[in-house]
């Protein structure tokens, strides 16, 4: 049993996987669909891979089109993130997550951020609003 934290559902679903933490907002258009590697210059995650990970980031960024297209292309290649945990919800990222069925939550217990470390394994249960860090 790991430690559990409350959060609020944006896009339903339940997944388990390793987390990757970004200090910067992410635009999925600047993630290479064939690999899941972030290619944006000077980005906190530049050169790292988001495929199959639970991505923790402040928010999304980028034009009204490119988030959806970025996530769509990643999912076509089987490289979309497993789930997302964000601080600031914006409608562009929210609608993309809902339409492409990537579980996503926000309004997370601040203690979660104090404990989580890049590479930890977690259960993201968006449907029930629960995060569990597996130690």
């Amino acid at each position, binding site marked *: 049993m790991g430690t559990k934290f409350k959060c609020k559902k944006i896009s339903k679903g339940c997944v388990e996987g390793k987390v990757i933490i970004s200090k*910067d907002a992410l635009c999925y258009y600047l993630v290479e669909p064939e690999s899941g590697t972030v290619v944006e*210059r000077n980005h906190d995650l530049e050169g790292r891979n988001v495929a199959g990970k639970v991505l923790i980031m402040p928010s999304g960024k980028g034009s*009204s*089109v490119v988030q959806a*297209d970025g996530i*769509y292309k990643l999912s076509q290649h089987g490289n979309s993130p497993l789930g997302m945990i964000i601080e600031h919800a914006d*409608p562009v990222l929210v*609608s993309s997550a809902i339409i492409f069925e990537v579980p996503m939550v926000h309004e997370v217990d601040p203690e979660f951020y104090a404990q989580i470390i890049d590479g930890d394994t977690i259960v993201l249960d968006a449907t029930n609003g629960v995060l569990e860090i597996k130690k």
Partner: protein
Amino acid sequence: MNLKPEHKDMLEGRYGEGVAKAMEIQTAIGETFDAKRMVPITRAHVALSSQDADLWFVEKMLSLGATCKVSPTVNPSIDLKYLNQHLFEIPKAGVDIVSATNAAYQKIGATLTFDCTPYLQQNVPGMGEVIAFSESSATPYVNSVLGARSNRESSQSALCAAVTGLVPEYGLLLDEHRYGEILVEVEADIETDFDYQLLGWCYPELYKGLEIPVFTGIKARPTPAGFMNFGAQLNTSGAVSMYHIVGVTPEAPTLEAAFGANKVKHRIKVTNDDIARTRDRLCRKGEKIDFAMFGCPHLTITQVETIAKTIAERRFAVDFWVLTSSLTKELAERMGYLDIIQRAGGHIVADTCIDVPPCWQPYYGKVGVTDSPKCAYYNEIRGIKFIIRPIEECVEAAIVGEVLQ
């Protein structure tokens, strides 16, 4: 959410599966942002993109029987015929996706304006009007400059709004969320349209939050192109859907009006040094170029005029593309600017976006010059390297084939 009986019926499929799907997506968004109800819209703009996800979604909605209750204007696509005649034979995959996207939008009931500046022509909302606009330069423009009310819609959520004629009521639709929280004291000298590109890119680098910024220290009202550049970059470098400029934008006659009951949460200064740092990081050093490209967002007639006047009967050494609306192209022809640009060896192409792959394939891996950081940013993925300069300097560079400084 507290849905009216009629809206519940829409969600439950009484008006068809298409409406039900749109409502399902919109109510999920509404619940994320604690919206209490759905409210009617009078206008919509969808950022059509002829990209895979775009076509997939509009065809999915069509297959469910959706049609638009409020006909949206749409973003640029590609003028296939023009590019075929003047650039290269567009690969079949490109022709197919562009043709299929255009047909699907026509079928669902969109108005095919193919222009990303609806707020300047064809779909201009008034103060207080509740609308659903996607397109990164449009959302800040309609909210900040015109005083209309739109959240930062995605192309998909804006299409849903066009189908239902409704939006969830949250965020920028409500008075209390339109006040500023971040005071941005601009000490830098911001005068030209290009300065607004840099300020728009710089601010989200200094502060990453989504709160509404209130800019002071802007000495003169920006031109429409200045406002357009500013919003496009604020919403690309960051996710700023609304800003105030004290003494300039309609909901900020004074600092007090801009902040309402809000306290100043953060105070950010933007100096000439900050702008210089953004310029150094973003704009790249001069080198030989293969082409020049303008129109992200679509150029205004004033910007086309600037290009024509800078050319002054010289000829370009490299390919030169001006992207604008069909109306502005026609006006450019009437004003003689089209002749000047064509005599120099350049093109004005209507209805077309810098970012509809694979229609600009001949430039993949090449070096271009543009006035738009947004154009440069979205082409990184295709290995197109853009040097960014003010329009006049871009024209000079295209004439000698090199960015000299």
